[in-house]
């Protein structure tokens, strides 16, 4: 009878088939070991047992039936007891939850729906709880459901699974119904009572909220306090006493505006604000991971960011440049794509799964970076499963990967005006090189002249002839030193010194046969004007082969020049027995040169011995020497100029095919995906054959498009955070459901609109913010406000915070008069080595380059600076959306006792003595003015005097560097 049921009800078969589709079983299906039907048969015995249980349950259920089952009274307590630990609000194992009606009826990831009203025995849920498949028995641990409980649920389903509306204890929210996914609103500027306070519309948003809470803004900070604050904020450095004096003396109405403009125009602005961005993109100068080796060409990206900010590159353009800078003459900008740690080829396991995993990890980092930096979305969370909180599917995640699937972590030649100028210069030198070659050639004996010539050499050989008229040249090889012959370039010069063999001259080429290796050995490379093994022709015969060139018109030929590898890397495959023949329309092939009058080839001779002065008269020998010297010097210049600058900015190639990976496992590939933007917003899908660059371009344009509500909001928030330490949204990298809600949503939208309206100018936004009344508040505590909002999320004062590590170090150097203002270029060393595993010893006392601003330090991933690293410097491992602030005794020890502090204290003291002489009070005053931008009080003078008299001025300098007043935002 049971068998009959199985045969009768085809749905059973489908169900058992689907049961086979668990991971384990799926793997043997995918291996093709068994056809699906065989697989079914293989497991047939299990369903038989299953049916037995179901049937029994059904009978039992009928037996107890009297009143209909009530969901709230009878069913939910069972779910609660056995299921909610894994299938309710806190956890949704297998994507299934049983505490909310709509979700429960929807089903889980693999079995949906799980409850089929009226059909208990077809409902996967019943099969799980009844344990008809032992490996799918639910709950997997702990007490199982009793027969009676199973019967109740079965009957409830058979009776139609009535789940009244409104009984759920939880209401659920559409994950897309989230503030940051909605279009940016055009908020109305709020009305306020304290109308004299706002200086700007921005302030009205802040004040309206304070008034609503019954709070008052703090009094305005003193002029000096604001100026010191805004100097740290915009440049990362304190004002000099002279700058402070100038500002305080400027009583014009626009003094604040003038000061802000001057700070924004300073190149120090980019040096300060680039740090915020580099924190987010986890910039570092080493590769991290396994051996943390140096990434020597990372710094052009760091310089790009500084420069882009200083130029006030519109933010939308800043995004484009970081994604497709290779097409916008901003090559270094695409360093953004490859800022993450990566395993270098030698560090990845030799086995294929290791390689696939490493590639996936490196693509993942790009998606993560794009998601959190530009969009404030943790897209990376959907690598192994759908996002737990946001409407981002696993498929979305892999579709994003497809945009960047052609990016390789590697150095690339960068375009820069300097490099271009050098290259142009090199081009100008090349004609002279050609001329030298010709002059040298003229010093060589002609072929068949009766004079013994040089043996052939792998680099370059000249055969002077004629001049003879011909429109065809044939170069025939009869023997090589080994293997199939290879020629990197065959050149034929006419009496005007032009190489008429070049394909650009219209010359045609044919051969006896080729060994073709794409992009390395091809026939067309023999007359393409490029040298070296990787642009060469190779014959398909051992020791033999010929090349024939046909010019578009008859030429007067003086010289044939050929070589195996002009770049002098290879010396095999060299033609040692050859023949050169000419032909014209009017005459047949004539031999004009061969190897018979050359000295015998010596395999041990130096490959560079392409010219011998043996037998030359002294005058000609001297001339040849001079020509050689000149050639060498020009060649070096050309080489240097054409080498250019490399940047670790990624290489771009044919994109990998991207598939959804089950559980994120590269060994479990599923459907192929195309580059598609998030389905959350009106998704755009590209065809699978879109070229690499166009993929990235489409991605960039989607990110910056006006339809994308995240980009402007996320950046406006980052700017606000930069000025106040905390954003309006506290989770700057996460604007999703799990992130914090904005404290001032209207203000955030207003700022986002302003940003876009101001042509995405960051500097315009800075100006607005730092001139606002909100920003001008003092740090003074208001007890009432503090009691209500101790974290100052409503901005009832300017928040008190410790300065960042970089500001502390840079300011100490500046105060000591030792800051080296050099911008850009390779980073200076914080340690005795620039990468590697261990043994980093810090350079304790900075000198020269070491006194540059800390953003120019060669940043070794995870190796924090020995003194300032403890001040919450991010380590370049994961994105730092904002600086955490901690206080530790290690910070105190570092700042009190490090040689850095002692050296800068001594330098500061020496500077002050040099500036004001030997009187202690003058020295103390000057120290306070430089370090704290204020004069000491009488008491401070009193207390300092005995200390400097007994222990030297550097003692006071050391104290000032450690003082809370020096270390905190004013």
């Amino acid at each position, binding site marked *: 009878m049971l068998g009959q049921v199985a045969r009768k009800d085809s749905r059973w078969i489908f169900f058992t088939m689907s049961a086979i589709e668990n991971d384990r079983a799926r793997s043997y299906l995918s291996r093709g070991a068994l056809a699906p039907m065989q697989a079914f048969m293989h497991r047939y015995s299990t369903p038989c047992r299953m049916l037995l249980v179901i049937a029994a349950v059904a009978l039992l259920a009928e037996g107890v039936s009297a009143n209909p089952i009530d969901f709230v009274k009878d069913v939910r307590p069972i779910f609660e007891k056995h299921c909610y630990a894994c299938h309710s609000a806190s956890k949704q194992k297998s994507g299934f939850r049983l505490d909310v009606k709509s979700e429960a009826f929807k089903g889980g*990831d693999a079995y949906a729906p799980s409850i089929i009203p009226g059909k208990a025995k077809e409902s996967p849920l019943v099969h799980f709880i009844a344990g008809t498949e032992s490996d799918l028995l639910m709950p997997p641990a702990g007490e199982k459901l009793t027969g009676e409980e199973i019967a109740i649920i079965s009957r409830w389903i058979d009776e139609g699974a009535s789940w009244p509306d409104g009984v759920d204890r939880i209401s659920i929210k559409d994950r897309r119904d989230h503030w940051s996914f909605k279009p940016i609103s055009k908020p109305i500027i709020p009305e306020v009572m304290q109308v004299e306070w706002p200086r700007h519309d921005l302030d009205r948003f802040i004040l309206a909220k304070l008034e609503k809470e019954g709070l008052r803004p703090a009094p305005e900070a003193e002029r000096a306090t604001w100026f010191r604050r805004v100097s740290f904020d915009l440049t990362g450095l304190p004002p000099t006493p002279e700058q402070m004096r100038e500002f305080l003396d400027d009583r014009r109405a626009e003094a604040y505006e003038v000061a802000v403009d001057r700070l924004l125009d300073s190149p120090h602005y980019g040096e300060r604000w680039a740090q915020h961005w580099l924190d987010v993109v986890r910039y570092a100068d080493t590769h991290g991971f396994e*051996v943390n080796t140096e990434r020597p060409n990372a710094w052009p990206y760091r310089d790009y960011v500084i420069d882009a900010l200083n130029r006030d590159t519109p933010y939308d353009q800043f995004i484009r440049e970081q994604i497709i800078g290779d097409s916008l003459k901003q090559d270094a900008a695409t360093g953004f794509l490859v800022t993450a740690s990566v395993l270098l080829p030698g560090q990845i396991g030799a086995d294929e799964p290791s390689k696939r995993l490493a590639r996936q990890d490196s693509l993942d980092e790009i998606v993560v970076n794009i998601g959190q930096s530009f969009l404030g979305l943790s897209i990376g969370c959907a690598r192994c499963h759908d996002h737990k909180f946001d409407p981002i599917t696993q498929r979305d995640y892999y579709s994003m990967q497809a945009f960047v699937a052609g990016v390789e972590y590697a150095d690339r030649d960068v375009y820069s005006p300097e490099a271009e100028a050098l290259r142009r210069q090199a081009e100008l030198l090349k004609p002279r090189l050609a001329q030298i070659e010709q002059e040298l050639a003229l010093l060589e004996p002609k072929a068949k002249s009766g004079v013994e010539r040089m043996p052939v050499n792998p680099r370059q050989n000249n055969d002077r002839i004629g001049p003879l008229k011909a429109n065809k040249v044939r170069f025939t090889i009869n023997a090589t030193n080994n293997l199939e012959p290879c020629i990197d370039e065959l050149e034929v010069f006419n009496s005007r010194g032009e190489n008429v063999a070049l394909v650009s001259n219209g010359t045609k080429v044919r051969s006896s046969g080729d060994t073709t290796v794409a992009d390395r050995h091809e026939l067309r490379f023999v007359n393409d004007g490029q040298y070296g093994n990787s642009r060469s022709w190779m014959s398909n015969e051992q020791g033999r082969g010929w090349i024939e060139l046909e010019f578009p018109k008859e030429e007067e030929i003086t010289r044939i020049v050929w070589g195996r590898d002009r770049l002098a890397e290879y010396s095999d495959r060299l033609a040692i027995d050859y023949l050169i023949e000419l032909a014209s329309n009017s005459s047949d092939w004539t031999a004009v040169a061969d190897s018979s009058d050359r000295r015998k080839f010596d395999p041990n001779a130096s490959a560079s011995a392409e010219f011998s002065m043996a037998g030359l008269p002294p005058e000609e020998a001297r001339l040849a020497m001079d020509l050689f010297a000149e050639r060498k010097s020009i060649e070096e210049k050309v080489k240097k100029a054409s080498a250019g600058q490399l940047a670790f900015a990624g290489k771009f190639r044919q994109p990998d095919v991207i598939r959804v990976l089950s559980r994120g496992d590269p060994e479990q590939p599923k459907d192929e995906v195309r580059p598609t933007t998030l389905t959350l917003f009106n998704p755009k899908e590209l065809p699978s054959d879109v070229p690499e660059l166009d993929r990235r371009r489409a991605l960039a344009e989607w990110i910056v498009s006006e339809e994308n509500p995240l980009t402007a909001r996320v950046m406006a928030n980052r700017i606000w955070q930069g000025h106040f330490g905390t954003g309006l949204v506290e989770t700057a990298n996460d604007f999703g459901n799990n992130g914090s809600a904005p404290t001032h949503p209207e203000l955030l939208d207003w700022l986002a609109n302003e940003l876009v309206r101001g042509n995405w100018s960051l500097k315009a936004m800075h100006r607005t913010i730092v001139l606002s009344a909100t920003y001008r508040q003092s740090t003074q505590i208001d007890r009432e406000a503090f009691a209500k909002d101790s974290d100052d999320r409503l901005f009832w004062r300017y928040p008190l915070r410790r300065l960042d590590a970089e500001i502390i170090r840079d300011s100490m150097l500046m105060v000591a008069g030792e800051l080296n203002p050099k911008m850009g270029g390779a980073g200076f060393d914080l340690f005795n080595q620039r990468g590697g595993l261990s043994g980093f010893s810090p350079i304790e006392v900075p000198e020269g380059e070491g006194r540059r601003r800390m953003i120019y330090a060669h940043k070794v991933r995870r190796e924090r600076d020995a003194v300032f690293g403890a001040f919450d410097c991010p380590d370049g491992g994961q994105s730092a959306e904002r600086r955490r602030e901690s206080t530790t005794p290690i910070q105190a020890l570092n700042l009190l006792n490090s040689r850095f502090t002692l050296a800068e204290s001594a330098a500061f003291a020496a500077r002050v003595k040099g500036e004001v002489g030997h009187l202690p009070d003058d020295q103390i005053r000057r120290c306070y003015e430089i370090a704290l931008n204020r004069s000491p009080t009488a008491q401070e003078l009193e207390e300092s005097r005995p200390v400097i008299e007994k222990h030297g001025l550097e003692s006071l300098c050391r104290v000032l560097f450690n003082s809370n007043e020096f270390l905190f935002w004013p």
Partner: protein
Amino acid sequence: MNARERSIAPVRSHLMDRRAFLGNMGTALSSIALADLLSNDRLLAASPAIDPARPFAARTPHFTPKAKNVLVIFCAGAVSQLETWDYKPELIKHDGMPLKGGPAVTFQGPAGELARPQYGFRPRGQTGKMVSDMIPHLAELTDDIAFVHSLTSKSNTHGPAENFLSTGFVLDGFPSLGSWLTYALGSECDDLPAYVAIPDPRGVPQAGSNNWGPGFLPAAFQGTPFSAKEPVRHLSAPGISAEADRAARELLARMNERHLAEHEGESRLAARIASYELAARMQLSVPEVSDLSSEPAHILKLYGADDASNSTKAAFARNCILARRLIEKGVRFVQLFNGAYASGGELNWDGHNKLKEQYDKHAAILDQPVAGLIIDLKQRGLLKDTLVVWCTEFGRMPMFQKGSKGRDHNPDGFTSWFTGAGIKPGVSHGITDELGQKAVQDVHPLYDFNATILHLLGLDHEQLTFEHNGIQRRLTNVEGKVIREVLA
């Protein structure tokens, strides 16, 4: 199409095929009870509240702990389970034969033939546990140890695998186990760092400071590295007399007090003042705890710190004594490293080429000092409150590599162990296959290992969280099960 329109659920077929299933999952259909989640979510509620003025104040765990502090002995380079704790008689029988169905290529390249354990094994103690002759001193302690033979790692590359062992993630930038514990529990000791990492005298391991880094936790919770050889940096100011130093500190204190008076109620300013006071105490207590001159001769002998014939062993033994002294003082988390970075197996346990020859050297450094340390902790009664963990990032293959006398990386089955507070002694849990290549019974990803350590300290690994980039991060990511079989 706007968001609302797209939220309409499509008709679902009874049982979706996989393609449709992948296409539909998530997106508009799924939804969450966010508000409810946030209010009910114990993960958010259970994170410790940190007083910025006293970040190291002792904090209460989630439940009564079995252990108050932890000593982790971290053997870098991947110790072979087959030469130490995981006895495989079948491997002796199959010596020189190919591994049927085994991988042709492993991490470093082509695989060679199966190779017998390079040391003899014999039964030890009451349990009769078979342990190798490579580590005779440690072998004597097996009655007190709970072994887990069935661990697995997510990476077969040293750096990422060490990250995984120490932070629960293969990527760089996540907080280490010790940082999590310090964040959760603070310290019982107010004049020493809450968390000390003691690097091996030969150098630091592959993942370097990631092993004791705070990741995205506040820097206060990072491990402070120092050893018997290398003191804490910046403990004193070179060239500054004690008198000058005192004068400067007094001047600083007065300045800061006045500044605080102008900013009444600012806990951050108060915290910084307090940190200078703690720093002053550390200036005295750290040299004191690092000064081993008061250790009697019999103690030096117990650890092998008096071994004049092996200076690396003696130096490592001194680190072991330092570890005990720190535990004695109430330091919450001590991490003792044995072995440095990849070096062709010369400086750590990465025995690719000359395994036997190199392990002879490494074992001599590890064995007596660590055994001495455990004996000493026990005789002082410290094991009652201290959990001791011995671990390594992954194991090694049962085959030799082609053309070499060493074993390649193997993340699929390896051994680590526990002893001390809260541990059931004399247990061997989990089994690898008969040749020791893969864990086959009671398989435990390292998540479980870390979840167990947290559990013994009274912490639920699912509750101990920290919000970073919008994610409630955990040491165990979204995995982890406590290995109850090793608990007392």
